[in-house]
């Protein structure tokens, strides 16, 4: 656990040092490359606004009305048995379906429960850990005209469930009370 903590602390400073250093050694025009990439970052952040608005409004209405509380109460007996906080159910469902939608839900959880709360950290780990299986399958297979997915979908979903369980396990181990 010490190692994971160390990695978390040092990751960004090391990346900030090493990437420009390698670039310098390889003769990359650092400043120009950075600005070109940064422009992409700007565009990406603006592009997620429609996703964020649609998902945050839906989940915000769901939470403010008290419906979220009812849902959590209804499912908590099952979720408590496997030690998964019921609050993350909407995120777990949305994650394989839509990247923007899942980011919206994760963001709402982080803001509602606090980024350094257990749920905030679990939501962060889950959001950072899997990709949108359905989307990737549709786009990648669609682009080459493959219609029969063989076992690709079950394989992707098994991986998603594994990731969910692993995220709960490791977050409990690192940050659980």
């Amino acid at each position, binding site marked *: 656990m010490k190692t*994971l903590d160390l*990695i*978390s602390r040092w*990751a*960004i400073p090391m*990346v900030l040092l090493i*990437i*420009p250093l*390698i670039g310098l050694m*390889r003769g990359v025009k650092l400043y120009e490359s950075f600005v070109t*990439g940064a*422009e992409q*970052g*700007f565009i990406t*952040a*603006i592009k*997620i*606004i429609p996703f964020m*608005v*649609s998902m945050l409004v839906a989940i*915000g*209405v*769901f*939470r*403010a009305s*008290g*419906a979220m509380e009812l849902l959590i109460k209804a499912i908590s007996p099952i979720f408590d048995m496997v030690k998964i906080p019921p609050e993350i159910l*909407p995120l777990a469902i*949305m994650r394989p*379906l839509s990247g923007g939608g899942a*980011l*919206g839900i994760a963001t709402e959880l*982080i803001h509602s429960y606090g*980024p350094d709360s257990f749920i*905030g*950290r679990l939501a*962060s*780990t889950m*959001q*950072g*850990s899997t990709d949108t299986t*359905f989307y990737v399958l549709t*786009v*990648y*297979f669609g*682009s*080459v005209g*493959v219609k029969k*997915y*063989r076992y*690709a979908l079950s*394989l*992707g979903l*098994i*991986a998603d469930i*594994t*990731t969910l369980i*692993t995220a709960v396990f490791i977050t409990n181990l*690192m*940050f659980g009370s």
Partner: protein
Amino acid sequence: MLLVNLIWFLLLSLGIITAAINGNIEIITAAAFDSAKMAVSIAFDLIGIMALWLGLLKIAEDSGLVKAIANLFKPLTVFLFPSIPKDHPAMGAIIMNLSANILGLGNAATPLGLKAMQEMQELNNSDEASEAMCTFLALNTSCITLIPATIIGVRASAGSSEPTAIVGTTIFTTGVGMMVAIIVDKILRKTYRKKKR
């Protein structure tokens, strides 16, 4: 994406119905408007961090870091894709795509991934996915992630005291996910072959 539409509608409608039953329908208007405003302010907070991160990654890309990682993983990909000849262009595209994924270069990963699919389809030539394609997509959706930049940005904008606290847990989780994907892929491949016979 039919399911997303349904979930979106259910969240809204169940919320409105619950508020109506509880007799505080006015809360819906406030919640909807506040959430819409919050979504934009979060995205604006993200601009700086995303620009910083993608700027750095562009330097990494231009220095050939993707290629360097690709070389590192070559033996593993040869083992994972036995049906693809070693120096077939599909292999190169697969390795480059996975390397870009590891670095969190989503924008660069997608075109490489589509190229890999095209090359694999030339070997496959059918409307059914090949085994290599299944392996490739499993790796693509559960690829190990070194720096989850977007969520670090969200955490920072939410006032976290340790926005990067989740880097370690993310690397661990994606590592386990990728290993399981590789193992399950091998198992499913065998059972599917038996079923076909």
